[in-house]
């Protein structure tokens, strides 16, 4: 936790004391974003919701120092990201495969189209899982389209240029692998 806050927390004497942060407002503003961040890692709705709850519990524990957080959005995403990774480490790969795509397939499609869609999603998400870790992380965070490269860099503790390079490589590698997979099918 200390490492999470390390780069984002500013010393209170360095800036004017901002007004107290309303936790209810934070929940309303960021819970969906945090859910998506956690869900992109865990691919499980219930587990992602657990992570979001855990994030806000941690925020509540540090409520006295919230006013010193420079970028609340990045700070919260970073907590959610790290908690989701912790959850994923405790999860067996089989469990991950089982829930792959279950919550992602569209419910409004016909049954055969839904099955086909589900297969395509599983294939692409499987390829994403097989990407190198750094590339995968950058790709998943950028997929949310709510975080800019600088924010992704802050969450992952990398430079912005490194994030751009990783994202480019990840997309290229994934495209190549998906194309390969399509040809073999």
């Amino acid at each position, binding site marked *: 936790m200390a490492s999470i806050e390390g780069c984002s927390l500013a010393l209170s004497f360095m800036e004017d004391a901002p007004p107290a942060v309303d936790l209810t407002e934070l929940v309303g503003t960021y819970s969906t974003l945090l859910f998506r961040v956690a869900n992109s890692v865990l691919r499980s*709705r219930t587990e992602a*919701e657990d992570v979001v*709850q855990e994030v806000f519990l941690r925020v509540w524990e540090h409520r006295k120092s919230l006013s010193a957080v420079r970028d609340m959005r990045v700070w919260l995403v970073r907590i959610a990201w790290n908690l989701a990774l912790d959850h994923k480490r405790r999860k067996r790969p089989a469990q991950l495969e089982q829930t792959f795509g279950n*919550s992602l397939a569209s419910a409004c499609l016909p049954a055969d189209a839904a099955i086909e869609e589900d297969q*395509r999603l599983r294939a692409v998400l499987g390829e994403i899982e097989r990407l190198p870790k750094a590339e995968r992380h950058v790709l998943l965070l950028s997929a949310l389209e709510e975080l800019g490269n600088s924010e992704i860099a802050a969450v992952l503790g990398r430079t912005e240029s490194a994030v751009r390079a990783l994202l480019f490589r990840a997309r290229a590698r994934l495209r190549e692998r998906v194309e390969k997979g*399509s040809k073999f099918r």
Partner: protein
Amino acid sequence: MSDAEKKIAAALARLREAEPSAGLERRILEGLAERERRVTVARWYNWRGTRSWRPAIALSLACALLLAAGVTSFLFESGRIDSHPRTISRQSAGAPQSAHHKIVSQVSPIQPPGVILPVLRKPHHTPQPNTKDAASGPGFPAPPLPLTEQERLLLRLAHRNDPQVRTILNPEQRAAEAARATEQFQQFFAINAAEMRRQLE
């Protein structure tokens, strides 16, 4: 856009468009309220419990230990005195000695020195100082100590010119006293003989 790119975009869009179940915010806020309530209760118990009272408890324990040590030492002292009664007579030898001096000064004007000394050897219930040692010891009151040579000399000097002593030592006065006693004796018996004769007649 190639087919692969479409597939990737579709998959990432699914990730991007994922929605949490309804009521997530309410559940989060309820969880926070529950946590706050627990923490408040825990703080209350901590405040009531040992954490805030630790210094006071430690101080009380220290006081209790000191008190216990004091009582123990007091009892130990008492026990030591009880088991060795002669110790107290030696320790409190000063008090009886001063009492003897008082007695001597009171008695000596009417008694010769030869008579005073045996009287001093008798045990006296002189008022003792109100000390714990003297009160609790079984050897109370302590036996009187014999007078020292200096004390005896002082006694003799103090009673040098007593009238009785002078009477005993002066032959003229002693003879006068004896004559007076004889006269009184004879007078007594003479009166009695006259009365007896009168009664017989």
